[in-house]
């Protein structure tokens, strides 16, 4: 695979302030920034207005900070709660068995209830993963500034929103003031031109980018994704791509809104309606980078050359086309890198030089804010249909709405017939804090976003890939190229 990379050499980014050429031409990032800037301090920090604030069970530190100050939520009608991180995905109709987890969910119910915040709670038919629910409810719109105490908030940038994850202190600040102090990031454009091959998904684009620019390649930058291959992506694909911006170090990623965006939003419950929607579309249509606008960094990829990608190590940039091999630390000249590789391979239980397709898996997981939307489930089902998984696995749809739709389409039957478990919606086995864990030492082919040590459970070994590639691993019993499995099928 040939990837063209134009920009400064890899490595730490100097924080030196560079003079940006003053120009009337603006990038999408500049336009979104100026729409939300209330004041700018002499030291460069700007106070920004926040349009949507999503909270979840993990936001309890922030609510405590607010209470400690004796303050209230400034704009409850712009704040929405979702129970996702801790909710059980199995047998939850009978309540939550684990008392600690039950307390986390109750705590969110109390904090949102006391503050008049709309909650998509455990029993709500709209419940799901916050980064799936926001878009499908029409809460996430182009031109909005969206924050949430979760690093994958970058997902919402798929609509041309300025969306990023924040920590508890910032969550508390937004709760109390509906504003946030931020320093304007540098601007990076990642252009992907060309046409994706059969069986290649947004996940493969994202992992190709991360492998190229590395897990910290976009630190300090906001990313705009552009190019013909991005335009051709559905909203689901764009959401996956923007979701993974943070795995390249970028706090936010975005795609300029277009007809695909507007068609997705029309008729969504919280989106503007009737003539309000038409007027909004007029404004949203201007949310594009001007033709002559300049970026601090540019990265180019050719979509025609993107292959199915899998990860083999313990950061998402440890990713290779599936026909590759596990690297050999002995061939690495950089001492620090060689040491890192030895530790990563030791943790992953992999021998240097192993063919990636020779790596046997113990289980599979399809879910998470990265890849649990209806299109993801369809892609996995297209491979699994009429086949049997050689390993156990869990499928957790991204929201209760996605679950209902998948069941209407008969996808649940395909997963069940293949031997996989069809569960309820939540963050589930991506982060494991609801109890859905990969046992220690087991290897999981997963549609999630992080292959960090212990991410899916202490000692768990994670290989990241697209939903179709996870399905291929399931029916093969080892990492496998999905493309031959799609012959004669509708991908």
């Amino acid at each position, binding site marked *: 695979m040939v990837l063209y990379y134009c920009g400064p050499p890899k*490595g730490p980014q100097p924080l030196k302030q560079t003079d940006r050429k003053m120009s009337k031409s603006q990038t999408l990032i500049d336009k979104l920034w100026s*729409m939300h800037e*209330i004041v700018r301090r002499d*030291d460069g920090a700007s106070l920004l207005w926040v349009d*949507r604030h999503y909270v979840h069970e993990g936001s309890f530190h922030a609510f405590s900070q607010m209470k400690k100050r004796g303050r209230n939520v400034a704009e409850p009608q712009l704040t929405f709660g979702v129970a996702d991180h801790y909710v059980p995905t199995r047998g939850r109709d009978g309540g939550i068995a684990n008392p600690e987890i039950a307390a*986390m969910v109750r705590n969110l119910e109390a904090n949102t209830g006391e503050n008049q915040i709309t909650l998509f709670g455990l029993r709500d038919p709209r419940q799901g993963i916050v980064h799936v629910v926001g878009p499908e409810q029409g809460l996430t719109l182009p031109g909005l500034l969206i924050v949430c105490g979760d690093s994958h908030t970058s997902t919402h940038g798929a609509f041309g929103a300025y969306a*990023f994850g924040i920590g508890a202190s910032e969550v508390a600040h937004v709760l109390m003031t509906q504003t946030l102090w931020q*320093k304007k990031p540098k601007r990076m454009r990642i252009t992907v031109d060309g046409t994706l091959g059969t069986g290649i998904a947004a996940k493969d684009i994202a992992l190709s980018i991360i492998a190229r620019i590395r897990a910290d390649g976009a630190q*300090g930058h906001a990313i705009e994704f552009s190019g013909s291959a991005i335009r051709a992506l559905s909203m689901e694909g764009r959401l996956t791509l923007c979701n993974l911006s943070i795995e390249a170090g970028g706090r936010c990623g975005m795609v300029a809104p277009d007809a695909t965006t507007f068609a997705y939003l029309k008729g969504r419950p919280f989106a503007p309606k009737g003539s309000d929607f038409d007027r909004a579309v007029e404004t949203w249509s201007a949310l594009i980078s001007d033709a002559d606008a300049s970026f601090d960094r540019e990265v180019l990829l050719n979509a025609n050359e993107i292959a199915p990608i899998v990860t083999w190590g313990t950061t998402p940039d440890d990713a290779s086309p599936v026909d590759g091999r596990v690297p050999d630390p002995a061939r690495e000249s950089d001492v620090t890198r060689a040491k*890192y590789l030895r530790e990563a391979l030791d943790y992953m239980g992999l021998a240097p030089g192993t063919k990636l397709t020779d790596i046997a898996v113990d289980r599979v997981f399809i879910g998470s804010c990265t890849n649990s939307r209806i299109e993801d489930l369809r892609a996995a089902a297209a491979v699994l249909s009429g086949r049997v998984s050689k390993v156990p696995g869990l499928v957790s749809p991204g929201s209760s709405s996605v679950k209902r739709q998948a069941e209407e389409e008969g996808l649940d039957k395909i997963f069940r017939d293949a031997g996989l478990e069809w569960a309820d919606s939540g963050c589930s086995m991506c982060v494991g804090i609801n109890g859905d864990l990969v046992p220690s030492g087991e290897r999981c082919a997963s549609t999630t976003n992080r292959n960090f040590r212990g991410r899916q459970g202490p000692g768990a070994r994670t290989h990241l890939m697209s939903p179709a590639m996870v399905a291929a691993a399931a029916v093969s019993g080892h990492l496998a190229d999905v493309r031959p499995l799609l012959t004669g099928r509708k991908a």
Partner: protein
Amino acid sequence: MDKFVRLTATACPLSLPNLNTDQILPARYLKWPRSKGLGTVLFDDVRLDANGKPRDDFAFNDEAYRGAKVLLAGRNFGGGSSREAAVYALYDHGFRCVVAPSFGDIFSQNAVKNGLLTAIAAESDIEKLAALVRETPSQPVTVDLEKQTVSGNGISFKFMIDPTSRNQLLNGWDDVDLTESYRDQVAAFKAKDKTLRPWAAPAKP
């Protein structure tokens, strides 16, 4: 928030790259209130082996570095999850400054809100100091935020930090109080924005 101006303390060398927030504080501890002692489970999954025994090859476990307030870390420290509890765990364990070639963006921002300095320095400088610290762990190092220098064991080097973060740490500013001082500007923005972007408010479902 505590101010940070200057610190003289011993350091712990931890050269591993990509120590993300899942490694700093594993997710299973995220439901703990801070008062339960997040500092005691710092780095648990990298610190301990599969049997729960401290790993000899993880410097943090070495008695010689007990009480260190400065962490000399590798590239891309604190990437990944936005969990601020990773900062609480470092701070509550006693660290006041992390020196690394690069940091996760959200981690850096969380750190400054809690008085933890994230100093960006050249990998070669950090490695040089780390080697000296390994020889004589009891020798303190000094981190000076005004001068933006790290010095000790006979060497000294500059570090970088975003000027906004530097200001906030030097002054111990509280964001909420600061924002209050712009109350009028916020109100004016809100009023004008309602007419400019009527579609920005959620519609009634």
